[in-house]
């Protein structure tokens, strides 16, 4: 059996609408320094951190090869550095593979993004589409989500009031999370009264624009136990990439998420996922995604997300105690922040939002239009 890999330290900046006073490098340093302080690690060649895995996006950063101006603040000068240009939870997967493969014993994961820098987040995700067939009609991730939200609404019991409750709950949860000081606190009525963005998605259903950075230290078991009192083990990871063209997919089917979850569950040795997780963090960029992804994960009956919300399911299952993406995380860091939040819960470091005696959790990340690419990570503590 491959050696165990643990998350030994977690750090993040706040996520705020406009960190006008900070460059990427400043945000990254704000994360790097506490990670080194928590673990006592450094970047010395013999026993220091073996590799740095950065997460960033060229178009969001407006510079090609967006990691190359970051190497000094990643400790990566003259060392081993890799970049994840996908949703950030892939960095966890990458670090896991590098450590399990015996390539290194320790890895730094550090992602940054300033959604406030570009004039419009939708213009950035518009670039994800091809220039001949899909860009000319104006597609971006919000419009694509509108199409998926409609398809899901047609096939599930989730209605406008359920979605308003999801958003209102996210705001309440975020009040207990010091990383989301600007999360909007809204009532059900305020959400229901907010204008449509891309029907049936309302303005308040969309995750807020934010800037921030998040990082972790990963280590092989022996090192993890030496540098950390409470390592969180990565016991299963799975992902799946669906078709590019929206028309090639069944948008309400959760096909890719089901595959990703099945792969992660199989690797973690989980037959029946129901009731197996003490905390769950899903990447809900838009309100409809929280129940939809929960169905895709097999944690809620298919088509019954509305009843699950009405019955207090999110609280009962400790879903997005952090506030989730609806409380504000940059797009490319959504899943990585989810993993960071689950890790904090399992370490017992989640402060006021701590779930008592949390032992196993699930973190979910998503990228691409209308949930093209899903990742699932299972985290556990001893």
């Amino acid at each position: 059996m491959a050696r165990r890999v643990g998350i030994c330290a977690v750090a993040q900046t706040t996520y705020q609408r406009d960190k006008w006073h900070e460059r990427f490098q400043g945000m990254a340093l704000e994360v790097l320094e506490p990670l080194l302080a928590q673990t006592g690690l450094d970047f010395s060649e013999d026993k220091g951190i073996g590799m740095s895995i950065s997460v960033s996006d060229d178009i969001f950063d407006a510079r090609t090869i967006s990691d190359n101006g970051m190497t000094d603040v990643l400790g990566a000068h003259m060392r081993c550095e890799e970049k994840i240009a996908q949703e950030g939870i892939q960095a966890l997967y990458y670090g896991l593979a590098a450590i399990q493969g015996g390539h290194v014993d320790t890895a730094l994961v550090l992602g940054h993004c300033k959604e406030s820098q570009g004039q419009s987040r939708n213009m950035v995700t518009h670039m994800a589409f091809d220039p001949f067939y899909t860009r000319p009609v104006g597609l971006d991730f919000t419009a694509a989500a509108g199409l998926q939200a409609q398809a899901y609404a047609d096939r599930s019991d989730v209605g406008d009031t359920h979605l308003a409750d999801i958003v209102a709950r996210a705001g309440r949860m975020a009040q207990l999370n010091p990383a989301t000081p600007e999360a909007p606190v809204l009532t059900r009525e305020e959400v229901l009264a907010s204008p449509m963005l891309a029907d049936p998605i309302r303005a308040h259903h969309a995750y807020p624009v934010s800037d921030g950075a998040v990082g972790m230290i990963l280590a092989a078991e022996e090192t993890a136990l030496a540098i950390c009192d409470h390592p969180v083990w990565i016991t299963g990871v799975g992902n799946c990439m669906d078709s590019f063209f929206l028309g090639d997919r069944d948008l309400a089917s959760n096909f890719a998420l089901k595959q990703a979850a099945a792969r992660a569950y199989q690797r973690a040795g989980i037959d029946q996922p129901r009731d197996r997780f003490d905390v769950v963090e899903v990447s809900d960029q838009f309100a409809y995604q929280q129940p939809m992804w929960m169905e895709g994960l097999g944690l809620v009956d298919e088509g019954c997300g509305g009843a699950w919300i009405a019955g207090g399911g999110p609280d009962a299952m400790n879903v997005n105690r952090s506030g989730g993406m609806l409380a504000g995380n940059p797009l490319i860091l959504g899943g990585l922040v989810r993993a960071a939040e689950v890790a904090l819960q399992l370490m017992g470091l989640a402060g006021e939002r701590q779930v008592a005696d949390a032992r196993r959790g699930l973190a979910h990340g998503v990228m691409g239009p209308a949930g093209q690419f899903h990742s699932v990570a299972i985290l556990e503590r001893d």
Partner: protein
Amino acid sequence: MQSDFDTSDCYTIEGKLALPYTYFAGRVGSRFITTLRDQHKIMGVRCAACDTVFVPPRQTCERCLGDLTDSWCEVGSRGRVVNFTVVRYPDRHLPRPVPFVLAMILLEGADTPIVHLLEGIPPEQVAVDMAVEAVFAETTTNTIRDIDHFKPCDA
């Protein structure tokens, strides 16, 4: 976690990310676009292995990995709405002033719907299953917008 340092030396500079690109449609894409542009015909490709007609066409079936380069078939310029949203946020990259309807339209003979603009009907009257037809553009852009938009038609 809170960054409460002295920000008196911090400010912002307005700039741009601006890059000139030359995109190639590929051989399959070129034939699709020139046929659409010159003959007002919408072409798909059929994968014989999985019996799926893909629009827009592509060189390879991602499911069977078969070569579809010479598997052309014409699909109808009429179809029906299978899903839609109303885009209501204004943004520079959008092709129309908001609100406008983006619909997934399954053309006659095709198995995969395309996303396109639906016009000539108020957004609140758009319904799934509605019959629509292509309105071809008067001037070419050498893109899918050589269909300017779709409009409702008799079933």
